[in-house]
């Protein structure tokens, strides 16, 4: 082995030793107390996709971050910083369940910024305490299963939908035809069950009477100040408030506040760009169709 190779190997070994030591110290075996802030921003969608239209926040990335905070011994408390209007039922529930599991080992405080509604509120309700700005939007304890239905548009342009199914409910909710009353009733039954589950979970999480939560669960959005009066939020404030509450719950006087990095897959980064492009293309086509329909022809 040449001298150069030997020297390079020694340098690499020294760097590896340094990196290992830094990783150990960072993992908090010997480190200062920390409060981890886990941001949840955007629509929550399992896989990060809602069809092909929009790329949202995959709960998998949040679950990984929560697990990291749970395993880090130097993290004494966690703040879940919410800026989300919710998303898919399963995605929101997965994160809410992870928060409930996390709070068994260390205190968790939810901080609602601009908006922490629907699935976002479900996640917040799973924490030990909720802090919101007086003008934050929260609540919206409800479920939405609305879908677009193009049968009228198809009729206008002479497009027909040839229905071929095995199982009468197989194409239930398909946007190409009008749903039957029976199908609407079935969909509504599922939505009601999910809504009921949501209500019961929030009531249990917040230690509120189920009937009271049911009355509030109209899907209405509340300002932070209103939510506090209704018992949906514990305290009005900001990140500083959340940090102080977390320190108090953790029984520590001083701590570094660190923002946990979101684990965003490279594919999701690209898909975010392409879905935004798709959105604007669709918007443009829609505007053109509307203009032609109105007897106008828009010229560039």
């Amino acid at each position: 082995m040449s001298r150069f190779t030997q020297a390079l190997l020694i340098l690499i070994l020294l760097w590896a030793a340094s990196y290992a030591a830094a990783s150990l110290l960072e993992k908090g075996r010997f480190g200062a107390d920390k409060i981890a802030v886990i941001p949840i921003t955007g629509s929550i969608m399992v896989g990060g996709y809602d069809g092909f239209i929009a790329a949202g926040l995959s709960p998998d990335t949040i679950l990984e971050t929560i697990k990291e905070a749970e395993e880090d011994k130097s993290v004494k408390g966690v703040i879940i910083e919410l800026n989300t209007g919710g998303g898919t039922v399963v995605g929101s529930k997965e994160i809410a369940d992870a928060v409930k599991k996390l709070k068994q080992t260390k205190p968790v405080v939810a901080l609602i910024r601009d908006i922490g509604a629907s699935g976002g509120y479900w996640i917040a309700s799973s924490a030990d305490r909720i802090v919101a700005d007086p003008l934050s939007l929260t609540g919206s304890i409800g479920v939405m299963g609305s879908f677009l239905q193009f049968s009228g548009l198809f009729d206008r342009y002479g497009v027909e939908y040839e229905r071929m199914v095995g199982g009468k409910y197989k194409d239930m909710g398909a946007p190409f035809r009008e749903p039957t009353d029976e199908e609407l009733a079935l969909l509504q039954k599922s939505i009601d069950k999910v809504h009921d589950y949501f209500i019961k979970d929030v009531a249990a999480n917040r230690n509120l009477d189920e009937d009271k939560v049911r009355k509030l669960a109209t899907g209405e959005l509340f300002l932070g100040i209103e939510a506090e009066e209704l018992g949906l939020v514990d305290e009005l404030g900001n990140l500083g408030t959340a940090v102080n509450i977390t320190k108090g719950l953790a029984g520590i006087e001083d701590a570094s506040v660190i923002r946990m990095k979101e684990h965003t897959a490279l594919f999701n980064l690209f898909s975010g760009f392409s879905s935004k492009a798709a959105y604007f293309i669709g918007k443009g086509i829609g505007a053109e169709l509307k203009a032609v329909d109105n007897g106008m022809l828009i010229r560039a």
Partner: protein
Amino acid sequence: MPKKVSVFKPAEFPAVLWKRAAAYIIDSVIIGLIIALPFQDLLKEYEDKPFSFFFSNANVSMNLFLVTLVSVLILMAYWTIFEFKFQQSIGKMLFNIKVHSLKGSLTVRQAFLRNISKISTILLLLDVIYMFAKKGRQRYLEVISGTEVIEALPLQLGRI
């Protein structure tokens, strides 16, 4: 044909001071990269803190102590391993100077001892001041360890 004879033996030709200084700077940069880069994220959370913060909290003080300890160990490992194995650190290789033992082959103990002052700028300064004060070519720890830094290649002054 006259014989080409080198007038000075390598062991008797000390390395010029500017080469030693330049070699030290290069080694310091390399060591800085090895130690500083992995600790970048860890130290980032402390960058806004006042000096007093580091002594206000037992956990922070312990963290700081451990970071310092690791840095010193890596630094000493660099100098000791390179100088024992190659008689040269990377900086010394670039300037063609090397460590020579006055007591036979260079040992690990000698390589370690001669570099202890490099863990602290103040210690190193005192070590170098000794060299100037004695008008010699060895730092204090080089005298203790029985080593010196010389030119790596013999100098041929012509033909005799």
